[in-house]
Protein backbone atom coordinates (compact mmCIF):
# COMPACT_ATOMS: atom_id res chain seq x y z
CA UNK A 1 0.00 0.00 0.00
CA UNK A 2 2.83 2.32 0.86
CA UNK A 3 4.38 1.49 -2.47
CA UNK A 4 1.74 3.41 -4.39
CA UNK A 5 1.20 6.16 -1.72
CA UNK A 6 4.58 6.74 -0.04
CA UNK A 7 5.11 9.40 2.65
CA UNK A 8 8.51 10.34 1.38
CA UNK A 9 8.93 10.77 -2.34
CA UNK A 10 11.73 12.63 -4.09
CA UNK A 11 9.90 12.40 -7.39
CA UNK A 12 7.00 14.29 -5.77
CA UNK A 13 9.40 17.12 -4.93
CA UNK A 14 10.80 17.11 -8.47
CA UNK A 15 7.35 17.22 -10.04
CA UNK A 16 5.88 19.84 -7.69
CA UNK A 17 8.80 22.17 -6.84
CA UNK A 18 7.02 25.14 -8.36
CA UNK A 19 3.97 24.58 -6.14
CA UNK A 20 6.23 24.06 -3.13
CA UNK A 21 8.04 27.36 -3.79
CA UNK A 22 4.77 29.25 -4.21
CA UNK A 23 3.40 27.83 -0.98
CA UNK A 24 6.70 28.66 0.73
CA UNK A 25 6.56 32.29 -0.43
CA UNK A 26 3.00 32.60 0.88
CA UNK A 27 3.94 30.90 4.15
CA UNK A 28 6.94 33.15 4.67
CA UNK A 29 5.03 36.26 3.65
CA UNK A 30 2.20 35.62 6.12
CA UNK A 31 4.70 34.78 8.89
CA UNK A 32 6.76 37.94 8.37
CA UNK A 33 3.68 40.17 8.03
CA UNK A 34 2.11 38.76 11.22
CA UNK A 35 5.30 39.16 13.25
CA UNK A 36 5.92 42.65 11.88
CA UNK A 37 2.39 43.66 12.84
CA UNK A 38 2.80 42.13 16.31
CA UNK A 39 6.10 43.97 16.88
CA UNK A 40 4.64 47.23 15.58
CA UNK A 41 1.94 46.92 18.26
CA UNK A 42 4.07 45.38 21.01
CA UNK A 43 6.82 48.02 21.13
CA UNK A 44 4.53 51.03 21.68
CA UNK A 45 2.40 49.03 24.14
CA UNK A 46 5.50 48.01 26.10
CA UNK A 47 6.80 51.60 26.09
CA UNK A 48 3.39 52.76 27.34
CA UNK A 49 3.59 50.22 30.14
CA UNK A 50 7.12 51.42 30.94
CA UNK A 51 5.94 55.01 31.24
CA UNK A 52 2.76 54.16 33.14
CA UNK A 53 3.59 51.09 35.23
CA UNK A 54 -0.03 50.87 36.40
CA UNK A 55 -1.02 50.01 32.81
CA UNK A 56 1.45 47.18 32.64
CA UNK A 57 -0.88 44.72 34.37
CA UNK A 58 -3.83 45.41 32.07
CA UNK A 59 -1.71 45.27 28.92
CA UNK A 60 -0.22 41.91 29.86
CA UNK A 61 -3.64 40.71 31.09
CA UNK A 62 -5.47 41.60 27.88
CA UNK A 63 -2.70 40.09 25.73
CA UNK A 64 -2.95 36.95 27.87
CA UNK A 65 -6.71 36.65 27.33
CA UNK A 66 -6.23 37.01 23.58
CA UNK A 67 -3.68 34.20 23.72
CA UNK A 68 -6.27 31.74 25.08
CA UNK A 69 -8.68 32.13 22.14
CA UNK A 70 -8.48 29.01 19.94
CA UNK A 71 -6.94 29.88 16.58
CA UNK A 72 -9.80 28.24 14.71
CA UNK A 73 -12.31 30.44 16.55
CA UNK A 74 -10.26 33.58 16.03
CA UNK A 75 -10.03 33.03 12.29
CA UNK A 76 -13.79 32.38 12.17
CA UNK A 77 -14.40 35.68 13.98
CA UNK A 78 -12.00 37.67 11.78
CA UNK A 79 -13.25 36.11 8.56
CA UNK A 80 -16.37 38.34 8.25
CA UNK A 81 -14.22 41.42 8.95
CA UNK A 82 -11.30 40.86 6.59
CA UNK A 83 -12.89 38.32 4.22
CA UNK A 84 -11.18 35.42 2.53
CA UNK A 85 -7.86 37.21 2.42
CA UNK A 86 -4.34 36.74 3.78
CA UNK A 87 -5.08 39.68 6.07
CA UNK A 88 -7.43 37.48 8.13
CA UNK A 89 -4.58 35.08 8.80
CA UNK A 90 -2.02 37.82 9.40
CA UNK A 91 -4.20 39.60 11.98
CA UNK A 92 -5.06 36.36 13.77
CA UNK A 93 -1.44 35.29 14.07
CA UNK A 94 -0.35 38.78 15.10
CA UNK A 95 -2.74 38.57 18.05
CA UNK A 96 -0.92 35.44 19.29
CA UNK A 97 2.52 36.87 18.70
CA UNK A 98 1.55 40.05 20.54
CA UNK A 99 1.58 38.62 24.05
CA UNK A 100 4.98 37.03 23.72
CA UNK A 101 6.49 40.19 22.24
CA UNK A 102 4.97 42.59 24.80
CA UNK A 103 6.24 40.37 27.58
CA UNK A 104 9.67 40.08 25.97
CA UNK A 105 10.05 43.84 25.63
CA UNK A 106 8.81 44.51 29.20
CA UNK A 107 10.98 41.79 30.74
CA UNK A 108 13.97 42.94 28.67
CA UNK A 109 13.56 46.52 29.89
CA UNK A 110 13.06 45.47 33.50
CA UNK A 111 16.16 43.27 33.48
CA UNK A 112 18.50 46.20 32.82
CA UNK A 113 20.55 46.43 36.06
CA UNK A 114 19.37 49.25 38.35
CA UNK A 115 22.98 50.37 38.83
CA UNK A 116 23.33 50.88 35.09
CA UNK A 117 20.14 52.93 34.93
CA UNK A 118 21.16 54.94 38.02
CA UNK A 119 24.57 55.71 36.50
CA UNK A 120 22.99 56.72 33.19
CA UNK A 121 20.51 59.11 34.83
CA UNK A 122 23.15 60.39 37.24
CA UNK A 123 25.45 61.27 34.35
CA UNK A 124 22.74 63.39 32.77
CA UNK A 125 20.86 61.23 30.29
CA UNK A 126 17.35 62.39 29.51
CA UNK A 127 14.60 59.78 29.63
CA UNK A 128 14.78 59.38 25.85
CA UNK A 129 18.57 58.98 25.91
CA UNK A 130 18.26 56.45 28.73
CA UNK A 131 15.77 54.43 26.69
CA UNK A 132 17.59 54.40 23.36
CA UNK A 133 21.21 54.41 24.49
CA UNK A 134 20.96 52.09 27.47
CA UNK A 135 17.67 50.29 28.07
CA UNK A 136 16.79 49.37 24.47
CA UNK A 137 20.16 47.85 23.56
CA UNK A 138 20.37 45.98 26.85
CA UNK A 139 16.82 44.64 26.38
CA UNK A 140 17.70 43.43 22.87
CA UNK A 141 18.88 39.89 23.78
CA UNK A 142 15.62 39.19 25.65
CA UNK A 143 13.52 40.76 22.89
CA UNK A 144 15.30 38.72 20.23
CA UNK A 145 14.86 35.54 22.27
CA UNK A 146 11.12 36.30 22.35
CA UNK A 147 11.19 36.98 18.63
CA UNK A 148 12.71 33.56 17.96
CA UNK A 149 10.00 31.79 19.98
CA UNK A 150 7.31 33.78 18.22
CA UNK A 151 8.80 33.06 14.80
CA UNK A 152 8.93 29.31 15.26
CA UNK A 153 5.43 29.11 16.68
CA UNK A 154 4.02 31.43 14.00
CA UNK A 155 5.52 29.37 11.18
CA UNK A 156 3.65 26.38 12.60
CA UNK A 157 0.39 28.27 13.09
CA UNK A 158 0.26 29.70 9.55
CA UNK A 159 -1.02 26.28 8.47
CA UNK A 160 -4.36 27.02 10.18
CA UNK A 161 -4.83 29.74 7.56
CA UNK A 162 -5.74 26.92 5.15
CA UNK A 163 -9.24 27.41 6.56
CA UNK A 164 -9.60 30.64 4.55
CA UNK A 165 -7.38 29.48 1.72
CA UNK A 166 -4.19 31.24 2.81
CA UNK A 167 -2.21 28.78 4.84
CA UNK A 168 0.99 28.42 2.82
CA UNK A 169 2.10 24.81 3.26
CA UNK A 170 -1.02 24.34 5.40
CA UNK A 171 -3.16 24.68 2.28
CA UNK A 172 -1.10 21.91 0.67
CA UNK A 173 -1.52 19.68 3.72
CA UNK A 174 -5.30 20.23 3.70
CA UNK A 175 -5.47 19.62 -0.05
CA UNK A 176 -3.42 16.45 0.37
CA UNK A 177 -5.90 15.27 2.98
CA UNK A 178 -8.85 15.86 0.64
CA UNK A 179 -7.03 14.14 -2.24
CA UNK A 180 -7.52 10.72 -0.61
CA UNK A 181 -4.71 11.32 1.88
CA UNK A 182 -1.97 12.05 -0.62
CA UNK A 183 0.85 11.06 1.70
CA UNK A 184 3.76 12.56 -0.24
CA UNK A 185 2.01 15.93 -0.48
CA UNK A 186 1.22 16.02 3.24
CA UNK A 187 4.67 14.86 4.36
CA UNK A 188 6.62 17.09 1.99
CA UNK A 189 4.64 20.19 2.99
CA UNK A 190 5.06 19.33 6.66
CA UNK A 191 8.82 18.89 6.29
CA UNK A 192 8.95 22.24 4.49
CA UNK A 193 7.21 23.90 7.47
CA UNK A 194 9.78 22.46 9.86
CA UNK A 195 12.69 23.45 7.60
CA UNK A 196 11.34 26.99 7.25
CA UNK A 197 11.08 27.30 11.04
CA UNK A 198 14.63 26.00 11.53
CA UNK A 199 16.10 28.30 8.87
CA UNK A 200 14.35 31.40 10.27
CA UNK A 201 15.45 30.48 13.80
CA UNK A 202 19.06 30.10 12.65
CA UNK A 203 18.93 33.44 10.83
CA UNK A 204 17.59 35.17 13.94
CA UNK A 205 20.30 33.57 16.06
CA UNK A 206 22.87 34.93 13.62
CA UNK A 207 21.27 38.38 13.78
CA UNK A 208 21.28 38.25 17.58
CA UNK A 209 25.04 37.56 17.60
CA UNK A 210 25.65 40.37 15.15
CA UNK A 211 23.74 43.04 17.07
CA UNK A 212 24.81 42.02 20.60
CA UNK A 213 28.60 41.71 20.30
CA UNK A 214 29.06 42.39 24.03
CA UNK A 215 27.41 39.10 25.03
CA UNK A 216 30.17 37.06 23.37
CA UNK A 217 32.82 35.33 25.42
CA UNK A 218 30.97 35.52 28.70
Amino acid at each position, binding site marked *: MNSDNPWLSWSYVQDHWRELIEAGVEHLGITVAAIALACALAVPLALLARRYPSLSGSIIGISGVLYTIPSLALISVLWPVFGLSPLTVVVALAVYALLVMVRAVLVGLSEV*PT*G*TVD*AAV*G*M*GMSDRELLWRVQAPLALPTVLAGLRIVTVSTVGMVTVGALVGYGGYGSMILAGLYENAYHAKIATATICVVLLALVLDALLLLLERQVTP*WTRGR
Partner: protein
Amino acid sequence: MTDAPAISLHDVAKTYPDGTVAVHELSFEVPRGRIAALVGPSGCGKTTTMRMINRLIEPTSGEIRIDGSDIMAADPVELRRQVGYVIQQVGLFPHRTISENVATVCDLNGWDSARTGTRVGEMLELVGLDPSTYGERYPHQLSGGQRQRVGVARALAADPPVLLMDEPFGAVDPVARARLQEQFFALQRQLGTTVVLVTHDIDEAVLLGDRLAVMREGGFLDQYAEPGTILGSPATPFVADFVGADRTIKRLALTPIDVSLLSGPQDIPGQPSVHADTRMREALVALFDSPTGTVLVTRDGTPLGTLTMDAVHRAMAAQEPAA
Protein backbone atom coordinates in the same frame (compact mmCIF):
# COMPACT_ATOMS: atom_id res chain seq x y z
CA MET B 1 31.64 83.82 42.69
CA THR B 2 35.11 82.36 43.03
CA ASP B 3 34.91 82.94 46.79
CA ALA B 4 31.81 80.80 47.09
CA PRO B 5 32.38 77.27 48.36
CA ALA B 6 32.16 74.72 45.54
CA ILE B 7 29.20 73.06 47.23
CA SER B 8 27.01 74.39 49.99
CA LEU B 9 24.00 72.84 51.66
CA HIS B 10 21.83 75.07 53.82
CA ASP B 11 19.13 73.54 56.06
CA VAL B 12 18.58 70.76 53.53
CA ALA B 13 16.00 68.15 54.51
CA LYS B 14 14.25 65.25 52.84
CA THR B 15 10.92 63.92 54.05
CA TYR B 16 9.04 61.31 52.05
CA PRO B 17 5.28 61.63 51.47
CA ASP B 18 4.61 58.84 54.01
CA GLY B 19 6.29 60.97 56.67
CA THR B 20 9.61 59.13 56.78
CA VAL B 21 12.41 61.56 57.42
CA ALA B 22 15.47 60.51 55.42
CA VAL B 23 17.54 63.60 56.16
CA HIS B 24 16.98 66.16 58.92
CA GLU B 25 17.87 69.78 58.25
CA LEU B 26 21.59 69.80 57.70
CA SER B 27 24.10 72.35 56.48
CA PHE B 28 27.70 72.07 55.36
CA GLU B 29 30.06 73.55 52.85
CA VAL B 30 32.75 71.85 50.78
CA PRO B 31 35.69 74.13 49.92
CA ARG B 32 36.83 74.12 46.31
CA GLY B 33 39.17 71.27 45.38
CA ARG B 34 38.56 69.37 48.63
CA ILE B 35 37.01 66.02 49.48
CA ALA B 36 34.07 65.85 51.89
CA ALA B 37 33.39 62.31 53.15
CA LEU B 38 29.83 61.58 54.28
CA VAL B 39 30.23 58.72 56.71
CA GLY B 40 27.84 56.78 58.90
CA PRO B 41 25.99 53.49 59.29
CA SER B 42 23.38 52.38 56.75
CA GLY B 43 20.12 54.27 57.09
CA CYS B 44 21.85 57.49 58.18
CA GLY B 45 20.85 59.35 55.01
CA LYS B 46 24.35 59.83 53.62
CA THR B 47 23.47 58.50 50.16
CA THR B 48 20.23 60.49 50.13
CA THR B 49 22.20 63.62 51.00
CA MET B 50 24.64 62.98 48.15
CA ARG B 51 21.89 62.22 45.64
CA MET B 52 20.19 65.52 46.42
CA ILE B 53 23.27 67.35 45.13
CA ASN B 54 22.62 66.20 41.55
CA ARG B 55 18.86 66.14 42.02
CA LEU B 56 18.44 62.39 41.69
CA ILE B 57 16.42 63.07 44.84
CA GLU B 58 14.67 66.43 45.26
CA PRO B 59 15.10 68.01 48.69
CA THR B 60 11.91 68.80 50.59
CA SER B 61 13.35 72.03 51.93
CA GLY B 62 16.58 73.95 52.17
CA GLU B 63 18.98 75.19 49.57
CA ILE B 64 21.85 73.55 47.72
CA ARG B 65 24.33 75.64 45.74
CA ILE B 66 27.12 74.57 43.41
CA ASP B 67 29.60 77.38 42.71
CA GLY B 68 27.12 79.77 44.22
CA SER B 69 24.21 78.85 41.91
CA ASP B 70 21.01 77.34 43.29
CA ILE B 71 20.70 73.86 41.77
CA MET B 72 16.90 74.08 41.80
CA ALA B 73 17.16 76.80 39.15
CA ALA B 74 19.01 74.49 36.75
CA ASP B 75 17.61 71.86 34.43
CA PRO B 76 18.29 68.52 36.20
CA VAL B 77 19.70 66.84 33.07
CA GLU B 78 22.04 69.78 32.37
CA LEU B 79 23.04 69.91 36.03
CA ARG B 80 23.99 66.22 36.09
CA ARG B 81 26.21 66.64 33.04
CA GLN B 82 28.28 69.13 35.07
CA VAL B 83 28.53 66.81 38.05
CA GLY B 84 30.55 63.59 37.87
CA TYR B 85 28.88 60.50 39.33
CA VAL B 86 30.39 57.21 40.46
CA ILE B 87 28.44 54.45 42.24
CA GLN B 88 29.38 51.25 44.02
CA GLN B 89 28.11 48.87 41.33
CA VAL B 90 30.10 51.13 38.96
CA GLY B 91 27.20 50.99 36.51
CA LEU B 92 29.36 50.68 33.42
CA PHE B 93 27.28 50.09 30.31
CA PRO B 94 27.80 46.38 29.55
CA HIS B 95 26.95 46.85 25.86
CA ARG B 96 29.54 49.55 25.29
CA THR B 97 33.29 49.25 25.04
CA ILE B 98 35.52 50.82 27.69
CA SER B 99 36.25 53.77 25.36
CA GLU B 100 32.55 54.26 24.62
CA ASN B 101 31.78 54.16 28.33
CA VAL B 102 34.36 56.82 29.14
CA ALA B 103 33.05 58.94 26.24
CA THR B 104 29.48 58.96 27.61
CA VAL B 105 29.23 62.49 28.99
CA CYS B 106 31.41 63.93 26.19
CA ASP B 107 28.92 62.45 23.71
CA LEU B 108 25.94 63.78 25.68
CA ASN B 109 27.56 67.22 25.63
CA GLY B 110 27.97 66.98 21.87
CA TRP B 111 31.77 67.03 21.69
CA ASP B 112 33.18 66.19 18.24
CA SER B 113 34.66 62.73 17.92
CA ALA B 114 38.28 63.90 17.64
CA ARG B 115 38.10 65.84 20.91
CA THR B 116 36.27 62.98 22.63
CA GLY B 117 38.77 60.42 21.34
CA THR B 118 41.72 62.42 22.64
CA ARG B 119 40.08 62.90 26.02
CA VAL B 120 39.13 59.23 26.37
CA GLY B 121 42.78 58.25 25.75
CA GLU B 122 43.99 60.80 28.31
CA MET B 123 41.50 59.67 30.93
CA LEU B 124 42.30 55.96 30.54
CA GLU B 125 46.01 56.73 30.88
CA LEU B 126 45.30 58.90 33.90
CA VAL B 127 43.67 55.97 35.71
CA GLY B 128 46.45 53.62 34.61
CA LEU B 129 44.73 51.67 31.84
CA ASP B 130 46.45 51.45 28.46
CA PRO B 131 43.90 52.71 25.89
CA SER B 132 45.17 50.44 23.11
CA THR B 133 44.86 47.37 25.35
CA TYR B 134 41.60 48.12 27.13
CA GLY B 135 39.76 50.66 24.96
CA GLU B 136 37.98 48.16 22.74
CA ARG B 137 37.16 45.66 25.48
CA TYR B 138 33.77 45.26 27.09
CA PRO B 139 33.33 45.82 30.85
CA HIS B 140 32.85 42.12 31.64
CA GLN B 141 36.35 41.46 30.28
CA LEU B 142 37.92 43.62 33.03
CA SER B 143 38.60 42.90 36.70
CA GLY B 144 36.58 44.61 39.43
CA GLY B 145 39.37 47.07 40.20
CA GLN B 146 39.83 47.92 36.53
CA ARG B 147 36.10 48.50 36.12
CA GLN B 148 36.16 50.79 39.13
CA ARG B 149 38.94 52.84 37.55
CA VAL B 150 36.96 53.05 34.30
CA GLY B 151 34.04 54.32 36.37
CA VAL B 152 36.21 57.12 37.75
CA ALA B 153 37.61 57.91 34.28
CA ARG B 154 34.08 58.06 32.88
CA ALA B 155 32.89 60.38 35.65
CA LEU B 156 35.81 62.77 35.16
CA ALA B 157 36.01 62.70 31.34
CA ALA B 158 34.01 65.87 30.73
CA ASP B 159 36.08 67.63 33.43
CA PRO B 160 33.28 68.27 35.91
CA PRO B 161 34.12 70.74 38.71
CA VAL B 162 32.23 68.53 41.16
CA LEU B 163 32.29 64.74 41.59
CA LEU B 164 29.85 62.63 43.62
CA MET B 165 30.93 59.13 44.69
CA ASP B 166 28.81 56.51 46.48
CA GLU B 167 30.94 53.76 48.09
CA PRO B 168 33.23 53.87 45.06
CA PHE B 169 35.75 51.37 46.41
CA GLY B 170 33.30 49.07 48.17
CA ALA B 171 33.18 46.28 45.61
CA VAL B 172 36.91 45.53 45.35
CA ASP B 173 39.20 43.47 47.55
CA PRO B 174 41.16 45.25 50.36
CA VAL B 175 44.52 45.22 48.55
CA ALA B 176 43.08 46.65 45.35
CA ARG B 177 41.04 49.10 47.42
CA ALA B 178 44.10 50.58 49.14
CA ARG B 179 45.79 51.10 45.78
CA LEU B 180 42.66 52.59 44.21
CA GLN B 181 42.23 54.98 47.13
CA GLU B 182 45.83 56.13 46.82
CA GLN B 183 45.57 56.59 43.05
CA PHE B 184 42.26 58.38 43.35
CA PHE B 185 43.59 60.77 45.95
CA ALA B 186 46.60 61.67 43.78
CA LEU B 187 44.31 62.15 40.77
CA GLN B 188 41.89 64.35 42.73
CA ARG B 189 44.72 66.58 43.96
CA GLN B 190 46.09 66.80 40.41
CA LEU B 191 42.72 67.76 38.85
CA GLY B 192 41.46 69.88 41.75
CA THR B 193 37.98 68.38 41.55
CA THR B 194 35.64 69.03 44.50
CA VAL B 195 34.40 65.67 45.74
CA VAL B 196 31.54 64.44 47.91
CA LEU B 197 32.28 60.84 48.88
CA VAL B 198 29.80 58.54 50.61
CA THR B 199 31.24 55.70 52.67
CA HIS B 200 30.36 53.55 55.67
CA ASP B 201 34.08 53.01 56.33
CA ILE B 202 35.55 55.49 58.82
CA ASP B 203 39.10 54.55 57.80
CA GLU B 204 38.37 55.40 54.17
CA ALA B 205 36.74 58.66 55.27
CA VAL B 206 39.77 59.61 57.39
CA LEU B 207 42.18 58.62 54.63
CA LEU B 208 40.51 60.57 51.81
CA GLY B 209 38.38 63.23 53.47
CA ASP B 210 39.50 66.82 53.99
CA ARG B 211 36.18 67.21 55.81
CA LEU B 212 34.12 64.51 57.48
CA ALA B 213 30.37 64.60 57.89
CA VAL B 214 29.46 61.97 60.48
CA MET B 215 25.81 61.03 60.18
CA ARG B 216 23.60 58.97 62.45
CA GLU B 217 20.49 56.81 61.83
CA GLY B 218 17.46 58.92 61.07
CA GLY B 219 19.33 61.42 58.92
CA PHE B 220 21.12 63.51 61.55
CA LEU B 221 24.44 65.24 60.88
CA ASP B 222 26.22 64.96 64.22
CA GLN B 223 29.50 66.62 63.30
CA TYR B 224 31.10 68.22 60.27
CA ALA B 225 34.79 69.00 60.68
CA GLU B 226 38.29 68.12 59.63
CA PRO B 227 39.26 64.51 60.36
CA GLY B 228 41.73 65.51 63.12
CA THR B 229 38.99 67.39 64.96
CA ILE B 230 36.49 64.54 64.60
CA LEU B 231 39.02 62.04 65.96
CA GLY B 232 40.41 64.42 68.60
CA SER B 233 37.16 65.79 69.96
CA PRO B 234 34.05 63.95 68.82
CA ALA B 235 31.00 66.19 69.25
CA THR B 236 28.58 63.51 70.43
CA PRO B 237 28.75 60.08 72.05
CA PHE B 238 27.61 58.62 68.73
CA VAL B 239 30.54 60.15 66.85
CA ALA B 240 32.98 58.94 69.52
CA ASP B 241 31.53 55.46 69.28
CA PHE B 242 31.43 55.47 65.48
CA VAL B 243 35.02 56.57 64.95
CA GLY B 244 36.06 53.79 67.29
CA ALA B 245 38.04 53.24 70.46
CA ASP B 246 41.23 53.40 68.45
CA ARG B 247 40.53 56.96 67.32
CA THR B 248 43.73 58.18 68.96
CA ILE B 249 45.74 55.72 66.89
CA LYS B 250 43.84 56.87 63.78
CA ARG B 251 44.63 60.45 64.69
CA LEU B 252 48.33 59.64 64.94
CA ALA B 253 48.19 58.67 61.27
CA LEU B 254 47.13 62.25 60.47
CA THR B 255 49.49 64.06 62.85
CA PRO B 256 52.89 65.22 61.58
CA ILE B 257 55.92 65.11 63.87
CA ASP B 258 56.11 68.32 65.90
CA VAL B 259 59.78 69.23 65.67
CA SER B 260 59.50 71.70 68.59
CA LEU B 261 58.72 68.82 70.95
CA LEU B 262 61.89 66.91 70.12
CA SER B 263 64.84 66.87 72.47
CA GLY B 264 68.20 67.86 71.03
CA PRO B 265 69.63 65.35 68.62
CA GLN B 266 71.49 62.67 70.52
CA ASP B 267 73.78 60.26 68.76
CA ILE B 268 72.77 56.99 70.37
CA PRO B 269 74.22 53.94 68.63
CA GLY B 270 71.59 51.58 67.22
CA GLN B 271 68.64 53.99 67.27
CA PRO B 272 66.51 54.05 64.13
CA SER B 273 65.82 57.26 62.22
CA VAL B 274 62.75 58.62 60.42
CA HIS B 275 62.26 61.54 58.04
CA ALA B 276 60.66 64.66 59.51
CA ASP B 277 57.70 64.37 57.05
CA THR B 278 56.75 61.03 58.60
CA ARG B 279 53.41 60.88 60.39
CA MET B 280 53.30 60.19 64.10
CA ARG B 281 51.88 56.66 63.74
CA GLU B 282 54.81 55.51 61.65
CA ALA B 283 57.26 57.25 64.01
CA LEU B 284 55.57 55.52 66.92
CA VAL B 285 56.00 52.12 65.26
CA ALA B 286 59.72 52.92 64.84
CA LEU B 287 59.82 53.95 68.49
CA PHE B 288 58.31 50.64 69.64
CA ASP B 289 60.82 48.76 67.54
CA SER B 290 63.75 50.85 68.72
CA PRO B 291 66.16 49.03 71.09
CA THR B 292 67.11 52.38 72.64
CA GLY B 293 63.59 53.75 73.18
CA THR B 294 64.45 56.72 70.98
CA VAL B 295 64.11 57.63 67.30
CA LEU B 296 66.30 60.14 65.48
CA VAL B 297 64.28 62.55 63.33
CA THR B 298 66.16 63.81 60.30
CA ARG B 299 65.50 66.05 57.33
CA ASP B 300 67.56 65.32 54.22
CA GLY B 301 70.21 63.61 56.32
CA THR B 302 70.49 66.41 58.93
CA PRO B 303 69.49 65.31 62.45
CA LEU B 304 66.74 67.57 63.86
CA GLY B 305 66.17 65.96 67.21
CA THR B 306 65.29 62.84 69.13
CA LEU B 307 61.78 61.52 69.53
CA THR B 308 60.85 59.81 72.79
CA MET B 309 57.61 58.29 74.06
CA ASP B 310 57.21 61.33 76.26
CA ALA B 311 57.34 63.61 73.20
CA VAL B 312 54.63 61.58 71.47
CA HIS B 313 52.46 61.87 74.52
CA ARG B 314 52.96 65.61 74.77
CA ALA B 315 52.27 66.01 71.03
CA MET B 316 48.89 64.25 71.29
CA ALA B 317 47.96 66.18 74.42
CA ALA B 318 48.84 69.47 72.70
CA GLN B 319 46.59 68.47 69.78
CA GLU B 320 43.62 67.87 72.02
CA PRO B 321 41.53 71.00 71.54
CA ALA B 322 40.39 72.66 74.74
CA ALA B 323 37.07 71.24 75.84
